[in-house]
Each structure stands twice: as structure tokens, then as C-alpha cells.
């Protein structure tokens, strides 16, 4: 048994979503945790599975930015200055039960690893009911807080809740759990401030060099595997043949999917 990880080249939104759905099938077939680390080209907004298309259209800060709807929940993310991962486990996996298990496992591993890089972060815990149950949720993921989000408290944020630097959301399929997550590396200068949130390089004392990102993620994956007592297998090449992914991407590129709500 091992943790299998693929480092994929940046791709467009529909191809990334298609590859992640294939990753869920891969995890079920292998019976273990599988991960994909990837970027986006072009820069893309991913919308949470249940967010309203009208809300995206009404958000001026993302006008003209390509948009894809994720199968997972949560808020919108402007990709391009973040590191995105997908992790999939069978529901029979120790982290396949309640949603918080996989969420906390991956975020706590990142918290510990960031500490080793001199970056202090905390898993956020709510003191009351979620905002969504009280007064509706913010449009952007990084303006929301839910239990287990990775936040940096050291730098003061306007709302006093600290800056969220990592958030994740899941799609719970019949036999597998697919979790998407995003670690913000720096502010995205391609979009207006309303859609741009500070990342590691903006918040960490002395910044966070781009050269450290690959070692950070490699250490994170090792920290994810450690409590499971399994080795990490870094797979060579892309996760799936480009034609296979492209063929499946059409459903995520369709208006029917993108504007389903």
C-alpha cells in the first residue's frame, strides 16, 4: 500500500476537473489514497458545486476570467497564484468517513510542515454556527471560514479572523471521497483586490520563495503518508493521457454543467 502522487502540468479548468474525477476512480481501483498536484492555464475561477451562476456573473472582480464549476462544495477560488491539489480516498479508507477526517488530516499535515519552514499557521475552529447557516456565505472561498481551514493569525486581517491560506472541499461519491484544496502562494495580481487574497509570500515574515514550494509540497505529501504508515510513490509522467482527460473534459466545459444553478 502506498500514497500515489502525480505532479501534473498546468491545464485548463475542464481538464483539471475531468482529471480529478478520474483520480477518484483511480483511488477506488488501487484501494488507497491518490493525490494530484497541479496548476491552471489559463488562470481560472473555480466555482463551488452549488454556487449560483448568477452570483458569479454579478461579481465584477472576475469578469472575463474563464470559469469552471467544481464537483466539490465550497466557495469560488481564483486560481493562478495558488497551488491546487486533489486527493481521493475510498470511503473504506481511515479518512473516508466523516468529511472532517480527510480535511483535518491534510490541513494538519500542511500546518506542521509549514512550521518547519518557519511559517506559523493554525487550524481554524468555529465558535458558533457556520455563517452559511446564519446569514449566507461569502462568494470567495478565502473570505469564508470553516472548521479546519488553515489560517495565519499573526498578520492582522480586516475582520480579525486571520488570513486563510489553505481551504478544501469535497465531493462525496458513492464509494470514494474526492477532496479539492488550494494553498495560496501569493496575491493574484491579475484580478482586482476584491478577488485577490494574500498568500504565503505576502504573509510570511521575509516572504516565501518560489524555490521552496516544491520542497514544501514534497514534505507535505510525506507528512500526509506518515500517520498512515505508508510510503509515497511519486508517479512519473502525467496522471492520465491527455486525450483521455480531454475526452472527459467536455462535461465540465458544457453550459449545462457550468450554469446548472
Amino acid at each position: 500500500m502506498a500514497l500515489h502522487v502525480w505532479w501534473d502540468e498546468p491545464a485548463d479548468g475542464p481538464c483539471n476537473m475531468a482529471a480529478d474525477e478520474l483520480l477518484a476512480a483511480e483511488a477506488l481501483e488501487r484501494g488507497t489514497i491518490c493525490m494530484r498536484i497541479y496548476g491552471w492555464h489559463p488562470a481560472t475561477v473555480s466555482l463551488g458545486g452549488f454556487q449560483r451562476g448568477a452570483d458569479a456573473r454579478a461579481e465584477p472582480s472576475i469578469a472575463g476570467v474563464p470559469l469552471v464549476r467544481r464537483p466539490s462544495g465550497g466557495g469560488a477560488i481564483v486560481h493562478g497564484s495558488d497551488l491546487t491539489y486533489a486527493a481521493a480516498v475510498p470511503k473504506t479508507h481511515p479518512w473516508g468517513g466523516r468529511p472532517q477526517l480527510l480535511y483535518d488530516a491534510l490541513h494538519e499535515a500542511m500546518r506542521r510542515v509549514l512550521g518547519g519552514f518557519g511559517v506559523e499557521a493554525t487550524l481554524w475552529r468555529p465558535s458558533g454556527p457556520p455563517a452559511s447557516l446564519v446569514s449566507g456565505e461569502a462568494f470567495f472561498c478565502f473570505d469564508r471560514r470553516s472548521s479546519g481551514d488553515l489560517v495565519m493569525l499573526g498578520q492582522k486581517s480586516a475582520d480579525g479572523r486571520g488570513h486563510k491560506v489553505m481551504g478544501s472541499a469535497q465531493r462525496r461519491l458513492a464509494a470514494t471521497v474526492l477532496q479539492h484544496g488550494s494553498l495560496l502562494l501569493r496575491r493574484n495580481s491579475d484580478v482586482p483586490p476584491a478577488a485577490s487574497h494574500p498568500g504565503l509570500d505576502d504573509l510570511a515574515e521575509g516572504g516565501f520563495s518560489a524555490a521552496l514550494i516544491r520542497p514544501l509540497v514534497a514534505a507535505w505529501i510525506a507528512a500526509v503518508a506518515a500517520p498512515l504508515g505508508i510510503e509515497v510513490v511519486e508517479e512519473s509522467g502525467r496522471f492520465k493521457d491527455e486525450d483521455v482527460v480531454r475526452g472527459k473534459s467536455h462535461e465540465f466545459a458544457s453550459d449545462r454543467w457550468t450554469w446548472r444553478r
Partner: protein
Amino acid sequence: MAAAMKFAKSHEWARPEDDGSVTVGISSYAVEALTDLVFMQLPEVGRRVKAGESLGEIESVKAVSDVYAPVSGEVVAVNTALPGSLETLGRDPYGAGWMVRLRPDDLAEMAALLDQPAYEAIVKSQPH
């Protein structure tokens, strides 16, 4: 008198009714495991589904989950009040928290589902 409720491994319950329909919902375990439900999308009356196909979706603060049809059939009723009062699922998942009623193609499909002791054994074996 209605037959006993049965369960799918994916945590839906199904209860045959006296009129031949099957009422479907999700178990208290599923409600508790998802925590903080925020949105639900249910099918329209008249939709046909096969056993194991998605009947609808539920969003919690962290996750989107499918609700799967435990048996094949046609949707003949939908609990339209439920998406507006998701707290009902937590209070009464096997009563007022019902989601849809199906007219089953073949009631014999119920035999493939789990009885309560077998389902509870699966729940106990789930990671916590």
C-alpha cells in the same frame, strides 16, 4: 401495514408503503456525518431513475454528496418543504425528513438492500 425499512450502503433508507410506493431518505448517521447541511437539490416528479443513480445532492459546509436511488422507478412525490428546512433532517430523518417517493419498477429490488441490523453493523465499522 408497511414493510420494514431497509438501507443502502450509501446511507439512504427505503420504506415500502401500503400504496406500493417506496419512500426514500437518508439515515441519521449520514445526516450526522455530513454536519451543517446548507443546501439540497431534489429531483422533479416524473423523473425515472435506476437503482444506484443519483436522485439529488446535498451540500454541507465542506462537501457535496449525492443521494442515490435505492431502487429503480419513477419519482411520484418530492418533499418540496425539505430544502427550505434542512434542520428537519436532523430532527426527524425517518419521518418528516423524507426526500422522495418512488413508484418502483420491481419491488423485489428491495431484497438487495440491508436490513437494520446489517446496516448498523456497517455504520459501526465506519471510520470516525
